[in-house]
């Protein structure tokens, strides 16, 4: 690991220093400190903020999976929520019908969903760009239809129930204990993704994104890596969905609609395409935005002018509008997302006051 500060400019002379996850020891300690802080969270946070943190963690895993597909490999998917849902149903099915321990059924659900992703990703071998987006849109609807139809698997309209999380006879179900479960999975999945991007496979995916014709000429097997990216991204979605299933202990097919897919894409785009930490930033943004809207509406109501009740009644729509507007504004003004904004802020302070 390099020193605590990095010199201005690009002085990296070895491949190892180019590949490093933490450019300075400071960034490593900052991440460790953040995780340690989150571990102490259950002792002083309200259960509402804990629930928000848990959801950020779960959706963060799903968003990271989508970022591997969209941001690193350049394949568009509008069907991520369907995989998320498939993971949730698979874990619920395995844990309740076959009495698989939940700690095991979550990764198993991830693997099964990954395999499904490979099958659904087969069109990706032939399609790209827009046509792929439309094909994944179709698979979103087809899978959603399957959820509402497959009584034996999903419980149909009634939904399926999922077992609570238990480890060594210890129940980890309430918000306070489940936070640790989610945190563990988040750390594992993010470390895996960060390392994946340092391997040959990760670099091949980035090559497919940047210029697929050149990549193919350089000996990258396009079909293989496109389908692999679909598989890995679905694996992430499956794990996230399974975590969600055991958190809410009830899975209903209505939750996994196109809007959730779009929300995942919004997280990835607002966070920053092709950035591992960006996926988490985007998730935080999308999850916190509705809370901010709620607080804003409460303040407007506090002012007490005549039309204020219209805002409280339309709160649900205001939240949706805020997300739609955030997507549009980010794409116009900050297309590289929060991760790029964060890099710019750091670069500005590194050279302050001579920032050019």
């Amino acid at each position, binding site marked *: 690991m390099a020193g605590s500060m990095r010199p201005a400019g690009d002085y990296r002379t070895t491949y190892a220093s180019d590949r490093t996850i933490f450019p300075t020891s400071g960034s490593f300690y900052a991440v460790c400190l953040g995780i340690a802080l989150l571990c102490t969270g259950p002792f002083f946070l309200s259960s509402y903020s804990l629930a928000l943190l848990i959801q950020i963690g779960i959706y963060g895993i799903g968003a990271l999976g989508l970022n591997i597909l*969209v941001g690193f490999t*350049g394949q*568009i998917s509008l069907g991520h929520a369907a995989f998320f849902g498939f993971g949730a149903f698979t874990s619920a099915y395995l844990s309740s019908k076959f009495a698989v321990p939940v700690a095991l059924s979550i990764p198993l659900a991830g693997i099964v969903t990954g395999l499904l992703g490979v099958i659904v990703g087969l*069109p990706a071998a*032939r*399609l790209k*760009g*827009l*046509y792929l*987006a*439309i*094909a994944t*849109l*179709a*698979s979103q*609807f*087809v899978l959603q*239809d399957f959820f*509402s*139809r497959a009584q034996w698997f999903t419980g149909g309209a009634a939904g399926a129930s999922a077992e609570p999380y238990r480890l060594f006879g210890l129940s980890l179900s309430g918000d306070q204990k489940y936070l640790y479960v989610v945190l563990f999975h988040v750390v594992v999945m993010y470390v895996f993704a960060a390392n994946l991007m340092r391997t040959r496979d990760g670099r091949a995916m980035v090559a497919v994104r940047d210029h697929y*014709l*050149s990549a193919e*000429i350089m000996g990258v097997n396009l079909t293989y890596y496109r389908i692999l990216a679909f598989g890995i991204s679905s694996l992430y979605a499956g794990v996230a969905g399974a975590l969600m299933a055991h958190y809410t202990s009830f899975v209903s097919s209505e939750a996994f609609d196109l*809007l959730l897919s*779009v929300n995942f*894409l*919004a997280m990835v*785009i607002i966070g920053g*395409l092709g950035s591992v930490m960006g996926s988490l930033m985007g998730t935080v943004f999308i999850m916190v935005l509705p809370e901010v809207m709620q607080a804003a509406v409460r303040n407007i109501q506090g002012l007490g002018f005549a039309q204020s009740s219209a805002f409280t009644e*339309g709160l649900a*729509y*205001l*939240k*949706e*509008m805020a*997300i*739609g*507007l*955030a*997507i*549009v504004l980010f*794409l*116009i003004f900050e*297309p590289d997302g929060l991760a790029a904004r964060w890099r710019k802020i750091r670069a500005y302070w590194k050279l302050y006051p001579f920032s050019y």
Partner: protein
Amino acid sequence: MNTTLLVQLLVNGVIVGALYGVVAMCFVLIYKASQVVNFAQGEFVLIGAWACWWLVATLKLPFWLSFPVCLVFMALLGVLVQVIVLRPLIGEPVISIVMVTIGLSIFFQALLKWMFGVFVQPFPQVFETQTVQILGLNVESAYLMSLAISLVIMAGFAYFFKYSRMGLAMRATAFDQQAAQSMGVSVKQVFAISWAISSVVSALAGVVVGLVSGVSASVANVGVKVFPAVIVGGLESIIGGVLGGLIIGLLEGLAQFVDSEYLHVGNLITIAPFYAMLIILLIKPYGLFGTKTIERV
């Protein structure tokens, strides 16, 4: 086999299909001219329907007046969306364009729900008779009007693209933006006008749907059904869009028939177009009339 039901469903299929065809045409128009995939097409249909409904039901204007006012409003809206949202994104990757129109669609949908509520609002009576009998089949008169309007619009499009100066400029832009620009075509103007036309024609379709079954958020579902239609027909072909719409409409009618007579699975009608689309994408991704792109390094 219940022949009357089959014929009735197929006739309905053709009529609904013509509507899909019109919306698909709008979609293709925007895609051809400005390479933008408009995921908010359904919302434009819905906005048109609500705008006309608001003029007729709330302001109590007569239909013959509110209809053109609504179309003018839609033309302005189309231009505004193009100039404010899409123009800064020229040259950005496909994912950005797809996402920005999805963002727009979320925004508009929530806004409309907030403004007009979630319940179906029926149009005040516009036609004297709701249904007419043709060859012993019940056909809604608004559907007949929609079929007539669709045919007129299609003929209008054909004339516009073949003979008018603007239409030729649009075709030139669709073929090669740089070449068109160097020949004196204002590409900006072409983009703006293509959005205006597209949103006006979408609104037409929206008003027709609203007249038949009332206005509600589900009118925007046409925007999703457009994708199977344009994929079957080919993304770059206006005729393909129309034919694709008809094919998807017929397929829906057929699916409903098979469902109600034999399979009894419930919602085959909503899902069949997407299976058709997946199959088409796998065997003939460029559709019936789409242009196959050849890439050279």
